[in-house]
């Protein structure tokens, strides 16, 4: 059985590119992201990220990136 280590993925949001459309928040299966009062996404549960890249794939403005650790 493989043990999945959580909380190792880094999520970067580029505020200058983001249009607050809410797609990344809607697509995150682990509720890692949430909308702030201006509807921009913020990372609230970084430890729950499973690196599925659903947010990256569905971001129309290329404003979100998920990085896996090196190696």
């Amino acid at each position, binding site marked *: 059985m493989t043990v999945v280590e959580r909380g190792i993925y880094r999520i970067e949001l580029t505020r200058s590119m983001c249009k607050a459309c*809410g797609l990344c928040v809607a*697509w995150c299966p682990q509720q890692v992201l949430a909308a702030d009062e201006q509807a921009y996404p913020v990372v609230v549960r970084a430890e729950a990220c499973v690196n599925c890249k659903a947010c990256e794939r*569905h971001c*129309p*403005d*290329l404003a979100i990136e998920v990085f896996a650790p090196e190696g």
Partner: protein
Amino acid sequence: MKLQNGFILREYLRPQVLPTTWCPGCGLGIVMSSIVQAVHHRGLAKRDVAMVSGIGCTGRMSGYVDFNTLHTTHGRAPAFATGLKLARPDLNVLVVMGDGDSMSIGGNHLVHAMRRNIGLTAIVVNNAVYGLTGGQASPTTPVGGRTTTSRPGSFERPMNLEALARASGASFFARATVNHTAALVKLIERALAVPGFSMVEIVSNCHVLYGRMNDLGDAAQMMQGMEPTTRRVNPVLLRRASMPQRLGAPEAPVDTSDTPFIDDPRIQRGVIFERAPRDDYAQRYHAMVAEHTALP
């Protein structure tokens, strides 16, 4: 493997004109990054790719990508691309059009580019509405779809791009949605490899004009709505449907190979048809020119 968004931004887009002018949540951004990823996966250099676009929301895409780009007149993108491909047969020419651009004003040019089977890759982004001009009914607005020019619901039959491509002689036709992004990249990749005319129809969302008028919700709800309204073309299921007797069904099997699941209202996505490769139009043209202009 998904490319990092920052890499796409740095390497393939023009950062001085970004962010895009498209509405928040528009599927066109997903289409643009999918095209870039497909070009990257095919291993094509930026100088070997040309993007030709017409007018409309989709037409703005040629301003954002860092390929050789050509922003042309309304509907005439296939005509400009035909000339470009004849002059430079070594280029991979992508023609990016919206549904109104390609099927309404540019319908004639699209049909004749498909008839010639010239080696273009057409990307038709279909959001069932004219987005840039304020949400008028387009040739693909479904019956009953409310738009600014069809308030009680459109009563015209929508155009069937798949049947048009089949009849006109295109080599490859695939359909994808902006919801299924991984399949979208793969299908554009396959279309780029086709030597003849290839087309990918992409079902996109216009939640600002079409979705609001038809109570389809915001961008995320419209994209999630593409899951139950489309279905994947599955060759195994097609085979099973044509041989129901092997699954214990009653006698008199129905031949469904020609018109599979005709009663299924869901839109098919995947590779709809692919023809055997034929002679390249540009090559044949240059051979003909060389033959007839050679000095005796």
